[in-house]
């Protein structure tokens, strides 16, 4: 029973981090139909910027803001210089370009920071253990779950309730029609891409506890991020949330309960899910 609660909480925390990082990817891949294997690089960028600032003495939350903004700006820059020409070049070109970006990022970060894990210490008031009844549990993980849930609710309101969200959903469902009714789809792309990268950076910073920052980050977590998008369904906010939480729970449960077959379990499940639902659990309406 105790183990079950710990698995639940750990899995939720992990899932929340994955969600925060991946939701941007789901939306941009669904919206812009661009395959972006380098999404993890933006999460990483935010994380490293914040880590450097915290090491230089900046308070955690200030570094969090700066890191998030930095990731967003980097995203905007990339969208203009790298991704715009890629829209019309097709899937293969996008896979290759972003794959190249991953390599360059890994090499660059290794050059500046070496291969060790870059520590991002959490502030004291968030660290430490909390008594949850029958045992103590890291407060930071509870913080992660809370942040994730709040963010999910906030994003939900944004996407379902706001004008921006309505335009976004329209453009995801049918870009041609959206243009025809006057939605500036290109500007929507850029704003969304920047937002998605900023979210990734945010996730990279607060999630540094569970997804340690090191140069191979973008490659190491590439598969989970893509799995969330593929299983959840391109452009589906709900899908990415469900997929991320499920993934987090299953992966954590697997590592706790059946560590010898955990990877089989995870990838086997992904395999079966994708075979049964090639377009994801919540496929985009204009898919297939």
């Amino acid at each position, binding site marked *: 029973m105790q183990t079950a609660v710990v698995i639940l909480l750990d899995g939720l925390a992990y899932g929340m981090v994955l969600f925060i990082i991946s939701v941007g990817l789901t939306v941009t891949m669904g919206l812009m139909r661009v395959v972006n294997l380098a999404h993890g690089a933006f999460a990483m960028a935010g994380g490293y910027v914040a880590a450097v600032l915290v090491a230089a003495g900046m308070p955690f939350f200030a570094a969090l803001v700066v890191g998030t903004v930095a990731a967003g700006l980097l995203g905007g820059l990339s969208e203009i210089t790298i991704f715009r020409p890629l829209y019309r070049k097709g899937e293969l070109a996008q896979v290759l370009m972003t*794959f190249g970006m991953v390599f360059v990022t890994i090499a660059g970060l290794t050059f500046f920071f070496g291969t060790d894990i870059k520590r991002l210490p959490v502030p004291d008031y968030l660290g430490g253990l909390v008594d949850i009844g029958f045992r103590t549990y890291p407060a930071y993980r509870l913080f992660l779950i809370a942040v994730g849930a709040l963010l999910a609710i906030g994003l939900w309101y944004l996407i379902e309730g706001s004008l921006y969200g309505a335009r976004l959903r329209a453009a995801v469902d049918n870009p041609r029609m959206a243009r025809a009714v006057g939605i500036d789809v290109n500007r929507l792309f850029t704003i969304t891409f920047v937002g998605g990268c900023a979210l990734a950076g945010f996730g990279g910073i607060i999630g540094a506890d569970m997804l340690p920052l090191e140069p191979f980050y973008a490659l190491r977590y590439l598969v989970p991020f893509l799995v969330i998008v593929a299983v959840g369904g391109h452009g589906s906010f709900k899908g990415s949330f469900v997929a991320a939480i499920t993934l987090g729970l299953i992966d954590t449960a697997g590592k706790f309960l059946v560590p*010898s077959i955990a990877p089989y379990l995870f*990838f086997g499940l992904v395999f079966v899910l994708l075979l049964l639902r090639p377009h994801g659990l919540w496929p985009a309406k204009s898919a297939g």
Partner: protein
Amino acid sequence: MKPLGTPTLADDRVSPLWHAMPWLLALAFYFMGAGYHSLGTNILVYILLTLSLDLALGYAGIITLGHAAFFGFGAYTAALFALHVYSEPVTGLIVATVVTGIFAALTGMLILHTQGVTLLMLTLAISILLAEWANRAHGITGGEDGLRVTMGYVLGLFRFDLWGRVAYLYALAVLFVWFLAAWSIVHSPFGRSLDGIRQNPARMRAVGTPVWWRLVAIYAISGAMAGTAGALSAQTTRFVGLNTLHVLISGIAVVMLVLGGTKRLYGAFIGATIYVVVQDVAAKVNPFYWMFVIGGLLMATVMFLEGGLMEVLDIARRRFRQLFARSRA
């Protein structure tokens, strides 16, 4: 007489001399490349791997990051065959090729009804699952330590010498045979139908093509070819390890293919050579320097040189011909 049709390779209009060149260079290397034969063999193995990916990805449009599965499968099969059944290399090579081809056909049948990111994920999933199994099954695969193999005489006649000269010729011969097969496939009606599937699957269905079966067929052939590359690697280095199944191999194969140019069989020669040389040289400077160079090259190629470096060669060759024609006029 060469069959007519849209040149799938600009090389179709090229004189036999240009065709012979890569092979002559490779042979010349045999005689002149003392001390570097194992590097040369490595290049040949990677050329074969890249060729296999060109068939699946360049021509048929199957976007995959899972070819390491076939490379490693072939490598381990060849090693295990030599260790437990019969150590003559050619036999082991054929067995590894066929078995890997069957594996590729089976996995292809499972996943080739999907496309895009989903297909990419599935190819990755298979590759990772296989690597995971190999890691755990150390009774069979040697796990982290890998397997050491001693090979018998090639065809019972030629011993693999310590300098790797025989291994080099062996690999070159195998590459040549597969190259001929690939050349035929690519120019054949089968190859053209695959090109059609890549360009517009709906159109091919509308002319009655059994798309899924065609894709499975080329995936199986491509997988078999990658399996041969893996087997060659195991036999010539007399070692096979978990790195042969690692996702990085799939990524490297894609990089080599793009650098050289997709749909350009000779592009594989260029791409593989560049990669291996860069990796060898750059790794001595800094273990991660090669990643930077390769990543940068990849990005630059996609951005500016859609035809890969073969396109540069094409331009060079055209200029050369113009110069030549002008000087004769």
